[in-house]
């Protein structure tokens, strides 16, 4: 009797839940209308406008008064983008900075993520987390200005180098300076991604390896590292995407000498020569780059892991 009762009550609850979820087919769309409208009008349509503008013909100022472009189909913006001047001035530096800073940031953030995941004191964990989240909340302006001071010719970094008898390095306006700034920007984001992956590894596996005689290096290389590979992949993808789309760092630390994709868009949309079709083409290339990295790199790496297994 009791058994029957329980069964009845669960089925009733199931029905009630179902009814609660699918009350009307129309209400959800009505309620979501403001969000959908906002994103369609101010996100999707601008994206498509930019895409179509990237195929428009550029009109130099004065050819037709008050017009910056003319709606005739042309590939000249993309051809210009892939010419050696622009490839060497913007595209290749972006690629170099992306890979260098992601690699360094990965090496620097992994130990911190690991120690946050494995610390037993909840207070210490909270302090670590506060530092990481504060680093994200502190805006780009503070970060970039701080690096401007640190890396200056008379700044602390060069003073330390001089103190140890090394020569001064011109960080500002060099790729090294931009890489340092970008790396530091990535740290906090990579720590969070790695942290959630390392937290999923059962510490008992590491204890087992150690009790079987493996030293810490072997335990790390054979147990922890392989298990945190999914987290490392997402960290690499995130690092590459975030660094590809940098604007503030190359704008200030690059001194106009080292420029990235972001600078190219900035220069031709807000600079002295306004060429919206060209900046739109650069923007489309940047979006394609970011999407290719997010899907391509993770797909490649994941298939590699499956193959290795």
């Amino acid at each position, binding site marked *: 009797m009791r058994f029957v009762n329980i069964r009845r009550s669960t089925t009733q609850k199931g029905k009630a839940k179902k009814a*609660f979820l*699918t*009350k009307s*087919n129309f209400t*959800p*769309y009505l309620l*979501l209308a403001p*969000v*959908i409208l*906002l*994103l369609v009008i*101010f*996100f*999707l349509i*601008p994206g498509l406008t*930019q895409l179509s*503008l990237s195929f428009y013909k550029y009109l130099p100022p004065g050819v037709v008064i008050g017009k910056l472009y003319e709606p005739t189909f042309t590939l000249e913006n993309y051809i210009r983008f892939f010419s050696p001047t622009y490839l060497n001035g913007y595209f290749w530096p972006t690629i170099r900075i992306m890979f260098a800073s992601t690699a360094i940031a990965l*090496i*620097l*953030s992994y*130990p*911190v993520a690991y120690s946050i995941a494995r610390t037993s004191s909840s207070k210490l964990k909270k302090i670590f*987390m*506060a*530092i990481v*989240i*504060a680093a*994200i909340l*502190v*805006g*780009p*302006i*503070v970060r970039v*200005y*701080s690096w401007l*001071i640190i890396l*200056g010719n*008379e*700044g*602390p970094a060069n*003073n330390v180098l001089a103190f140890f008898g090394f020569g001064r390095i011109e960080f500002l306006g060099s790729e090294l300076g931009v890489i340092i700034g970008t790396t*530091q920007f990535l*740290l906090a984001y990579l720590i*969070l991604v790695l942290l*959630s992956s390392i937290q999923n590894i059962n510490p008992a596996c590491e204890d087992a390896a150690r009790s079987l005689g493996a030293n810490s*290096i072997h335990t790390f290389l054979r147990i922890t590292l392989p298990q945190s590979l999914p987290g490392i992949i*997402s960290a690499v993808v995130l690092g590459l995407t975030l660094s*590809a*789309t940098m*604007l*503030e760092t190359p704008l*200030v630390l690059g001194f106009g000498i080292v420029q990235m994709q972001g600078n190219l*868009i*900035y220069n031709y*949309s*807000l600079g002295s020569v306004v060429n919206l079709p060209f900046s*739109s083409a650069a*923007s489309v290339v940047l979006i394609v780059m*970011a999407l290719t990295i*997010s899907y391509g790199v993770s797909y490649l790496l994941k298939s590699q892991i499956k193959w290795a297994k």
Partner: protein
Amino acid sequence: MLTEKIAKAFVTFLIILTLSLLILIPVIVAIDAFSPTAYSNFPPSSLSFRWFENFFGNPSLLSSFQISIFFAAIVAVATVTIGTLASYVIARYQFKGKKLIDALIQAPIVFPGVALGNALLVFFYSSGFYYHPAMLIIGQTIIGLPYVFRVMLPSFTGLNQSFEEASMTLGASRVETFFRVTLPLVKSALLAGAILGFAAAFNDYAVSVFLVDPTIQTLPVQLMGLMQAGVDPTIAAAATFTVLIMIVLLVVCEKIVGIDKLMTGVKY
């Protein structure tokens, strides 16, 4: 054994280096704000408040500071309102195209900021709008929305539906239930969402720079303009204020709801 010790020392060094890179950045700016000389000379030899006086005596910097706070507050309210509605509907209803809408709301977070800024500039230019404060608010709302959405969605899906069912069985309408039962239960997420929405708008440069009017500039845009001209401790004084605001928000969030709520929104 020796290699193990060396490896351990190296790892400890990496941890200290990384943490100090995270902590030192705002600290150095704050120290520079108190430097007595205009030529940034680090570390400063004595304390001075002249750069703070400079900042408060500069009407254009001060007004852009107020504009930044005002706009960020509007964006916080807008993103929390829209984000709550969207995440509630996605958590509570079954309908076609749910995944697509979810992806659409979260898309701006992976979309490059510069590209979004340029897209909005091109869109507004080609549709005849040029320089309107509403453009800035719309742009900042779009970048702030995914963060709020990411905080709100798990708190709605994680909420036990029996509270709402009980309220509705007792005769409350769905709307009444939402305002009197559901919302009070997720108020911690509302606060965390508002903080993230505010911070996203307040700190944004990449999108805002494409949308600001030469006369109505936000603080980050104006400070970046000054910075490209060179080092000036007035920038440090203004930046120190933005750091203070963020620290206050972080402490408020930690005291009321705990820092973990912010993490779900910030994490990619």
